[in-house]
């Protein structure tokens, strides 16, 4: 096992565009040590940034304590963490699936907006239906609209080769304008309001709260089950179904997949639509479980955070589940941090970005923490 062999092994693994995010047989170092170091280093950097902006050391201590208490320190904290994790995991599953298929979809935010908007409209306009039909229908409409919106980028890529990064970013920006415009339309705007805010979703289309029998302030809702079902479904889809195999094959080696008879354009459109459907579901669950109405910017950057979640979870459904809960915890803890220690929640964004840097560049983590890894690095057969 010489250094040269090691380098060649790394070279092999770096070859495909998404190799880092998609390769299947991760070992212990990849799955546990790298993320662990990433989180620790990111928190240390966060502390350094607080120091650099003249936050004193006791306050830094208080903010990390608030971060911990606000994310896992109480029943309410867990409820907030999981509530924040639900849309992150749902959208992250879609993005991870896209990465597996070799698609870099930046558009989850826009798909989430469109799915949420569709859920609001279905929610208040179909209010004559009983809850057993109305709620699932509302979620399904959210899925369908999110899928349709993402499919635009997929179709453009498949037919003209337009790069999905650019087209999904543009679709995001378009969806924000569309949202702002729709919220001023009389049929959507809440009666008697001049500010842009939509009508409310009736109870029959709301995801029921799970813990309100303990305390009505606990916001955790039945989207938790939707999320778990989605994790299981995407796992099955990716690793046990024929179409999932086509997704992964196209991502790993497009020309081999093409010669094996998989239609590249079909795979692209279907993968984008599935990803968009999940992002749309994330939006719909956020509307029907938490917000109850749409307002400008209701997507709150969830679609962008979900990119980080998918990268952190290595595009594996179970990984995404844990990554989503971690990010949900950072989100919930960050709010507590802002209230208790007066440190801006924007710090959480920095910590999240740093986590992804270290996850996506394992060579960097190895350079910082050489003692955390076996001397010769990864065995070649793990590649």
């Amino acid at each position, binding site marked *: 096992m010489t250094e040269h062999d090691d380098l060649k092994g790394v070279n092999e693994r770096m070859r495909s565009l*998404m190799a880092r995010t998609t390769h299947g047989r991760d070992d212990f170092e990849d799955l546990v040590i790298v993320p662990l170091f990433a989180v620790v280093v990111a928190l240390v950097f966060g502390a350094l940034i607080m120091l650099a902006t003249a936050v004193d050391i006791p306050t830094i201590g208080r903010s990390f304590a608030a971060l911990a208490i606000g994310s896992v320190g109480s029943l309410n904290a867990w409820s907030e963490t999981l509530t924040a994790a639900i849309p992150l995991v749902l959208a992250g599953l879609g993005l991870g699936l896209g990465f597996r298929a070799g698609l870099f979809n930046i558009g989850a935010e826009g798909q989430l907006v469109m799915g949420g908007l569709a859920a609001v409209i279905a929610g208040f306009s179909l209010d004559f239906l009983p809850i057993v039909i109305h709620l699932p229908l509302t979620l399904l409409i959210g899925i369908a609209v999110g899928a349709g919106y993402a499919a635009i980028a997929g179709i*453009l890529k498949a037919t003209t080769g337009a790069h999905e990064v650019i087209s999904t*970013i543009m679709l995001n920006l378009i969806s924000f304008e569309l949202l702002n*415009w729709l919220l001023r339309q009389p049929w959507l705007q809440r009666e008697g309001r001049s500010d842009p805010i939509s009508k409310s979703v009736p109870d029959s289309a709301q995801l029921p709260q799970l813990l309100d029998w303990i305390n009505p302030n606990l916001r955790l809702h039945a989207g938790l089950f939707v999320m778990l079902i989605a994790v299981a479904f995407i796992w099955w889809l990716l690793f046990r179904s024929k179409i999932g195999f086509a997704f992964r094959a196209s991502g790993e080696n497009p020309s081999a997949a093409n010669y094996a008879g998989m239609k590249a354009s079909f795979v692209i459109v279907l993968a984008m639509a599935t990803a968009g459907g999940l992002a749309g579901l994330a939006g719909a669950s956020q509307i029907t479980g938490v917000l109850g109405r749409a307002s400008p910017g209701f997507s709150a950057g969830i679609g962008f955070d979900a*990119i980080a979640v998918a990268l952190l979870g290595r595009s594996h459904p179970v990984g995404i589940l844990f990554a989503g809960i971690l990010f949900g915890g950072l989100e919930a803890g960050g709010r507590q941090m802002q209230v208790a220690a007066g440190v801006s929640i924007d710090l959480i*964004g920095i910590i999240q970005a740093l986590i992804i840097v270290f996850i996506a560049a394992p060579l960097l983590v190895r350079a910082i923490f050489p003692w955390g890894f076996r001397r010769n690095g990864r065995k070649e057969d793990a590649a």
Partner: protein
Amino acid sequence: MTDMTATQTQAEKLDSAASRKARIMGGILIALALLVLFVLDVVPGESATFRLTTRRDAIQIPDLVVPGAFNMVCAALLAFLGVRQLLRGGARWTSLSLGFGLLLLVMAFLVWATAGKAFNLTSMLQAAVLASVPIALGGLAGVMSERVAVVNIAIEGMLLAGAFAGALIGSLLGGWIGLVAAILVGGCFGLLLATLVVTFRMDQIIAGVVINLFVLGVTSYVSSQVFAEYRFLNNAKVFRAWEIPLLSDIPVIGPMLFDQNLFVYGAFILVGIATYYLFHTRNGLRARAVGEHPRAADTLGVDVYVTRYVHVTIAGMIAGFGGAFFTLGNVGRFEENMTNGRGYIGLAAMIFGRWHPVGALSAALIFGFADSIQQKLALLNTPIPSEFLAMAPYIATIIVVAGLVGRSRPPAADGKPYVKE
């Protein structure tokens, strides 16, 4: 159409893809013709008045009065281009027709919006040039790094970092030092991107996205944690317009190009330098070789890693300069996420401009034009909601990227890490 037989060659396949795209574009052009005919129709007898000079100007030229029938002509031309494209569309004509078609659409739209009113065209064009500056510099940064095969999604973050550094240092130490700081900070992020993707071989798109997230996080954090409390840290002096004597007196062109601030002149000069450097110097040729075939360049003694480091850092400096425009060239104050996607539009401008500095600048001017139309038309009270006008540049970007990407080719090694043997 042609029979799909098993013996169809690859060339024929490409051909049919090109002609399918040509047909799609034909359909789009005909749809635009219908749009002009039925939506942008002007009441007969009304005409649009475009003011070209203001009373203060040294040289006066009469207003441009366009009769409403102009839109009929536009619709007819669009329909002709569309039908031509449908019947015998060729790859060579597709992008030309599309570009000309979009230009016709914009002109018809302006005539429709101004019908029966008067509108100062020159001030809109002046604003268009100004709006295109960050997009052009972002696009140029993209050209510099993609020519050495490093995909640069991080332009958005570099612009934001430049804007932030410009505001902070500019408030403390004055505009010029703020400008230098913006360039240096941009360069640092370029260097960081190069380190991540060249040395640590991180995926280039992920590295870019992460830099964007990081810059957005840091700048938002500081502006809410520090700027909110110490306002004097976020109050820089703005670079005013420098009027170039004589040239600025030329009607229309003068205000557009010769009565602007430092950033406009800087953008034009940098585009000139970059074009000369990339296509007429030895080092430029080496840089392009690294982008096209790094192995060959390496064999001939070009240091691929150093070349990539240098060019991506320069790209970061250009983007930092472009970012300073937002604060030092415009409002003097930093706001959270104030670049608002301009970096991504710059990336689209680079693709539209076929990875060429001049092309990127031209594309940026078109985007800037769309941007300023949206702002100025709010004054004209058009029935179109402002949100839809705001959407127009994004939709145009999608159409352009979809319509042209097959015709323009990125550097062959774009996005691939290089490992020395």
